[in-house]
């Protein structure tokens, strides 16, 4: 198929939607399809992969609490038209077609079968809700809608009065599976074990305080236990706030690239997700499963489900440091259990592997093309 994909956010800024579009495009190309991605950005940017077409400069706009780089104008419209004309696409797949974005602009202009993927689980902005009836003439051009989660689908049903097919985010299982550990890792288990954590460690709901309390309990019997922390945050402040006796047990890696994230997962004996509340936790558990890293996670509903009711990870009582210490002790002390968890992970993560997810998306393309007037 000739497939055009529109990413509304700049390629050079890391983000969930960009990563999704990149993995989808590369998977589809790998399956033999012709793919072109239109994304905001400078035309002469050297870092763009060959399948990305730059749609020109962007204007930073505050949107839903974060700064999105967006564009909407005559120049962009010309670029979109040219891209559509040159691409002769069988289907065009726009992502997050909220106003004002390249995706919505494409919906306005394009005269080809259109599929849209909605990523956000909530539309907090009343400002956007005002536009609903104005947007309807363009939204009704979509032949198919995809939501990346049930929550995103709920948003579409309640907000746009339409339905959507739920297809989850994918994980590039093979790149996580075959990553090399960080230099100096994995450490011999006799040293006390290595624990991994990835995320914004300063946010309360990520549960770092529970993890540190558990680490203190664990350090009593395993003085050499090490906690590897990667993610965004004020590192100096965080280290200064650590209790003295734990400072030697904590290693800060700062922000890491995706490749280093995979390496980190291969460097630890167990990955911990101590999150205390639902709102957002990231696709990190799927990535840990793809890397076959044994997982210990709090017993939130979402975690319980993604870990196949504890088959692919040991669950502990949410917010309980003693129960987390028990779970970590259990996993670190039992190599047979770690083997079982890894084996289950491989199986549980399989449906989220990009080739599987992409085949579900291709199925939607086929039906959307058949259901379009062309």
């Amino acid at each position, binding site marked *: 198929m000739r497939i055009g994909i529109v990413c509304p956010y700049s390629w050079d800024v890391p983000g*969930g939607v960009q*990563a999704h579009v990149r993995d989808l495009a590369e998977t589809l190309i790998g399956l033999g399809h012709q793919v072109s991605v239109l994304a905001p950005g400078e035309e002469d940017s050297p870092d763009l992969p060959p399948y990305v077409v730059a749609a020109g400069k962007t204007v930073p706009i505050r949107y839903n609490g974060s700064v999105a780089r967006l564009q909407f104008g005559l120049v962009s419209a010309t670029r979109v038209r040219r891209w559509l004309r040159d691409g002769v696409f069988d289907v065009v797949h726009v992502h997050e077609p909220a106003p004002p974005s390249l995706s919505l602009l494409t919906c306005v202009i394009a005269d080809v079968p259109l599929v849209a993927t909605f990523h*956000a*689980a909530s539309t907090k902005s009343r400002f956007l809700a005002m536009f609903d009836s104005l947007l*309807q*003439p363009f939204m*009704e*051009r*979509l*032949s*198919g*809608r995809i*939501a*990346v*989660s*049930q*929550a*995103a*689908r709920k948003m579409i049903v309640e907000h746009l*009065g*339409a*339905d959507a*097919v*739920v297809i*989850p*985010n994918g994980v590039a299982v093979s790149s996580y599976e075959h990553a090399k550990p960080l230099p100096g890792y994995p450490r011999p288990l006799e040293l006390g074990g290595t624990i991994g954590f*990835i*995320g*914004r460690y300063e946010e309360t709901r*990520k549960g770092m305080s529970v993890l540190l309390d558990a680490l203190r309990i664990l350090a009593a019997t395993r003085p050499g236990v090490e906690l590897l922390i990667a*993610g*965004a945050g004020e590192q100096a402040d965080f280290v200064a706030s650590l209790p003295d006796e734990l400072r030697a047990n904590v290693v800060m890696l700062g*922000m*890491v690239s995706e490749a280093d*994230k995979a390496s980190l997962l291969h460097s630890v004996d167990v990955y911990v997700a101590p999150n205390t509340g*639902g*709102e*957002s*936790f*990231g*696709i*990190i558990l799927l990535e840990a499963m793809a890397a076959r890293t044994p997982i210990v996670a709090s017993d*939130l509903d*979402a975690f319980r*489900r*993604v870990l*196949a009711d504890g088959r692919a990870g040991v669950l502990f009582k949410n917010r309980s440091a003693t129960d987390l210490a028990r779970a970590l002790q259990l996993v670190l002390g039992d190599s047979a259990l770690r083997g079982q968890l890894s084996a289950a992970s491989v199986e*549980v993560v*399989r*449906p*989220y592997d990009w080739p*599987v*997810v992409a085949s579900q998306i291709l*199925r*939607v393309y086929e*039906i959307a093309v*058949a*259901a*379009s*007037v062309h």
Partner: protein
Amino acid sequence: MLSASWWISAVVVAILLTTWVTFTVTRLDRLHAKVDAAQAALDAQLVRRSAALLHVAEMPRSGVPDEHALQLAHAAHSALAVDLLDRQAAENQVGRAIGGLANLRPVLAVDAVAELSEAATRVAIARRFYNDSVRDTRSLRARRMPRLLHLAGHRELPQFFDIDDTNLLAVPYQATGDELGRIEESSA
């Protein structure tokens, strides 16, 4: 003066109204055409599903018990009949026949299950897209101005296609996104 400005406003209003009517008529044309296309796509997927059921019913080593196979073939034949009175009821029969195989799953041939599950998934997607275009069309037609001005002409009001399309044969641990309900973005 008064009458001149009155005329100007009348002309402006007339132009705006004409533009709006043209725009809305075009929208309605497109929507009705889209409903037709989506209906054809849905129809194709429904036929494919019945054909898959028939195929499995007649498959020599499908693993379906003989008496059961007859029932399946019957459901498929009824849905494929040309003089169908109640399509939704017939398709619900097909859906139930496929769903009923979920219990037999361990003894069924793997390719039989795959064929039926794929066909059932496609029906669910095509139905969703069809109903979406029906909803869009109906809501535009239901608005006051298009209704008063009779902009939809004599075209029939498109009807929703209501069947239970739950796919009970879906692979265990099939990713549905349920698990990811609360995940919004990668946090690293």
